[in-house]
């Protein structure tokens, strides 16, 4: 696979799967403001995934939807960090903090790429991610002395750079995420 497409897929998979995981807080966050925040962050992440898949799809001669939903779970190349279902608030916040840090570094690198399309899209995404980072920063400050939060950071940190883990949790999520699409023959127009 082309090198650029592979890089785009890695980031797009991260953003899509994280978007789905974040959306799991819709309706069950500890208070209403966080319900709004995580739903909005999820929407942004899926939007970033769409733009990244569109660019990759052009390189690979396919479509964004096919890349997002018609691959097998083992073909996704997201970080193991985003694959996990984390129904505990402190672990969700720990993931949020770790992901936003890693993503900020990645975007900073891409913004200086000599590939103008990649650099332009990274700059666009980064403008939105700033607000995710501020939200993560706010929570990191609030929970900084909480032992459960500190333990969650230690637990999840090694997963950031671990890819292709093919965890059972990703397979389960994939099953839910694609079930409606798979209920119809391939190539169906939705």
């Amino acid at each position, binding site marked *: 696979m082309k090198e650029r497409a592979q890089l785009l897929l890695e980031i797009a998979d991260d953003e899509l799967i994280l978007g789905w995981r974040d959306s799991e807080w819709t309706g069950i966050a500890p208070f209403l403001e966080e319900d709004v*925040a995580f739903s*909005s962050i999820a929407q942004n992440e899926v939007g970033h995934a769409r733009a990244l898949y569109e660019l990759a799809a052009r390189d690979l001669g396919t479509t964004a939807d096919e890349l997002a939903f018609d691959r097998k779970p083992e073909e996704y190349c997201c970080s193991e960090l985003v694959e996990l279902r984390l129904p505990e608030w402190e672990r969700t916040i720990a993931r949020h903090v770790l992901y936003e840090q890693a993503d900020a570094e990645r975007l900073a690198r891409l913004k200086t790429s000599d590939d103008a399309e990649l650099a332009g899209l990274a700059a666009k995404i980064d403008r939105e991610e*700033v607000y995710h980072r501020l939200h993560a920063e706010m929570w990191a400050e609030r929970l900084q002395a909480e032992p459960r939060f500190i333990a969650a950071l230690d637990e999840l940190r090694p997963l950031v750079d671990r890819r292709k883990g093919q965890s059972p949790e990703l397979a389960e999520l994939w099953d839910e995420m694609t079930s409606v699409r798979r209920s119809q023959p391939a190539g169906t127009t939705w």
Partner: protein
Amino acid sequence: MTEAEVWKALAEIADPEIPVISVVDLGVVRDVRIEQERVHVEFTPTFLGCPALAVMRDAMAEKVRELGGEPEVEVVLDDSWSTDKITPQGREKLRAAGFAPPTPREAEAPKLVQLQSNGFRCPYCGSRDTALENIFGPTPCRSLRYCRECRQPFEQFKTI
């Protein structure tokens, strides 16, 4: 058909989520070029996850068709749109509808202390005694603030 006519027609398209403002006021139409029948429109999305994007793109194509042109709406995925592109008229329309317009984009990314500061004016009473309630709001482009002066919650456009 002239480019000016296309711009005028596009200015009739309301933002699907904030109908007081048009897509031209919003600054998302970057360029209009006519080559015989073909009308090329460069569209720079606001927030990438905004569900209104597809609606705006389709509405632009439809307007061009109404003028008898063959639309070619190109979605430009770069950093050329910013909230600074919202026109002065657009900002006033937002304020009048109770949405505080975005503060100008600065060289540095916004910081938490800035969002928590009193640099934001209530669109209803003009007071700067306002507090950040939530960085996120009902759509990706808005935050929630509360005016301590007139006790009115309001939506603040995020600066991007």
